[in-house]
């Protein structure tokens, strides 16, 4: 058994940490309060230049070919400083991996290069709809073939990066008569496509620098070759990618949780009450012990899922476990961090309230934790 990272993984982790500390952390609080989005996009461009937008993508298509473990490590380090940047990076890598897995040679050449290089500020995954959230197979956006084109109609909701995405992986119903989930296909829709409107941006509790918008398709015509993978197999094409996405969201949550506890533990060693540092109180020590233990357990689960993914082993269950456990551990860590800072933790003079808000959505998006539990149970029970 070997728990050591490779030298390359360590260098990637250190590079991500240094970049996050120097470039992302100083801007994160301001961006959370509605600061200039140009700064946010500028940081994404720098990350693309360094190769963070296609970590698992083959070098032939402009990627770093660094693997799933390195991707998980990088997202954790970035999320320690700025969760909004981390989620954008996670979604870009997710879309890129889906294209790499299911795309034609032309699609890979065309889109992967632009995602990896930062020519596209971001890429979006458009699955969720007002009536298809957890029940994602209830997708009602339709795609109808008309000559050499597909015509899309309907609307999507909660789409990360929509206003600055260069390409959208859109899930749409292509066979209404098929069994539920069996008639859905995935399409690559370029920004600016006629009939695609980027709707209003949500005002969110956290991860506020990252845009989350509605999309509407109104007779949006895209070429026949915009179909990604096989017709009516949208979910099959994306399943592998989505499992990786779960590892990445778990890794993101881990980063937020660590940032919160690192801050709170250091604070507890400075703050004195009753003539003693509050870190000398057992109640505080227990919160520190519990949270760091849970975060370490989360890290190990995520690393093991990522290592399985990287070596081509099945990891559906492990990815869901890692996502579920890490996001809940991170939320408890943030809750504890605010508690350790007392009233100060509840103000925006300290970063822990932002961490707590940023962590909250991680149990919801990329499949709610209830859905992760269904996946885990399904994976376990199907082998009995």
């Amino acid at each position, binding site marked *: 058994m070997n728990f050591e990272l490779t*030298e*390359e993984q*360590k*260098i*990637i982790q*250190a*590079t991500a940490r*240094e*970049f996050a500390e120097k470039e992302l952390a100083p801007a994160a609080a301001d961006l959370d309060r509605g600061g200039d989005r140009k700064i946010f996009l500028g940081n994404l461009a720098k990350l693309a*230049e*360094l*190769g*963070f937008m296609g*970590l698992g993508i083959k*070098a032939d298509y402009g*990627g*770093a*070919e*660094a693997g799933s473990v*390195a991707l998980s490590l990088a997202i954790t380090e970035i999320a320690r400083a700025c969760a909004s940047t981390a989620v954008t990076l996670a979604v870009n890598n997710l879309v890129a991996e889906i294209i790499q897995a299911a795309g034609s040679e032309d699609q890979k050449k065309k889109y992967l290069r632009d995602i990896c290089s930062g020519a596209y500020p971001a890429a979006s995954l458009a699955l969720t709809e007002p009536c298809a959230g957890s029940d994602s197979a209830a997708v009602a956006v339709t795609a109808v073939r008309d000559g050499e084109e597909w015509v899309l109609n309907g609307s999507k909701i909660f789409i990360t990066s929509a206003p600055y995405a260069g390409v959208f992986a859109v899930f749409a119903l292509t066979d209404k008569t098929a069994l539920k989930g069996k008639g859905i296909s995935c399409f690559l829709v370029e920004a600016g496509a006629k009939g695609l409107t980027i709707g209003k941006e949500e005002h969110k509790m956290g991860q506020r620098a990252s845009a989350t918008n509605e999309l509407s398709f109104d007779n949006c015509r895209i070429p026949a070759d915009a179909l990604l993978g096989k017709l009516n197999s949208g979910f099959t094409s994306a399943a592998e990618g989505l499992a990786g996405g779960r590892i990445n969201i778990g890794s993101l949550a881990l980063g937020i949780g660590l940032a919160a506890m690192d801050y709170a533990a250091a604070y507890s060693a400075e703050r004195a009450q009753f003539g003693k540092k509050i870190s000398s109180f057992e109640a505080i020590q227990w919160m520190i012990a519990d949270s760091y233990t849970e975060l370490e357990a989360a890290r190990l689960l995520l690393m093991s899922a990522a290592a399985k993914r990287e070596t081509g082993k099945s990891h559906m269950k492990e990815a869901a476990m890692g996502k579920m456990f890490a996001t809940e551990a991170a939320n408890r860590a943030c809750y504890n961090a605010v508690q350790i800072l007392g009233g100060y933790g509840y103000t925006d003079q300290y970063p822990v309230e932002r961490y707590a808000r940023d962590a909250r959505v991680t149990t919801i998006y990329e499949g709610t934790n209830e859905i992760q539990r269904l996946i885990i149970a399904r994976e376990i029970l199907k082998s009995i």
Partner: protein
Amino acid sequence: MKILVCIKQIPDMASKFKPNAANTWFTETDLAFRMNEYDEYAVEEAIKLKEKQGADPSDLVVLSVGPARVVEALKKALAMGCDRGVHIHDDESNLKDPWQIASLIAAYAKKENFDIIFTGMQSQDRGSGQVGVTLAGDLGCSCVTTAINFSLEAGVVTAKRELEGGAKGVVKLKLPAVVTCQLGLNTPRYPTLPNIMKARKKEIAVLKAAELSAEGPRAVTEKFYHPVKKGTGLVLEGEPAALAVKVLELIKEKTTVLRG
């Protein structure tokens, strides 16, 4: 042009350092290591020089003395843009004095005839600031220390130096030369991820320290210890305006935050 850059891997300076069993240095157990910050500037300057050579074939070698762990620092330098690595394997390098380290590097460099050698001005952990200059002496090269600006035209190095009290000086020297680099000399680049992965294919030659030099120490570290903590901090008193001036002076004198 043959260029050498010498780097050291040092512990994260925010670590808690514990003395080793002999109380002569710190123990490495549980420490995380990274490239000495001064050396990052040396690597960047060496890469910039190599890039300026354009079509002229240049050979940029990065060298580190130390145990197996220093390969990570070498790989980072290779990912940043060095051509090949030399690892002088020495499990006891952290106990060696600057003379011994310089002797090891010189034993290798003598045979290679480098035109120019970059090192950090000092290491963040031992901080002797002697390896670069001793190496220059050993090789009979000219040497400039604490460079904050560097150029090389027609075989002449022009370097700006930082002098005491904020003054600056400019020196010119002939090749072969050793340049020890101060913080702020340039902006060290981040290695890109594709280059980190590609650097796996770059050569790292391993040399055994014992086969290069058997020099003994000239300055033996007798004792490593933490000074006794003084209870109180510094208390300044007086008018706010005068206090502000005093605080600014203290920051300039005692810290690096205003250096530039």
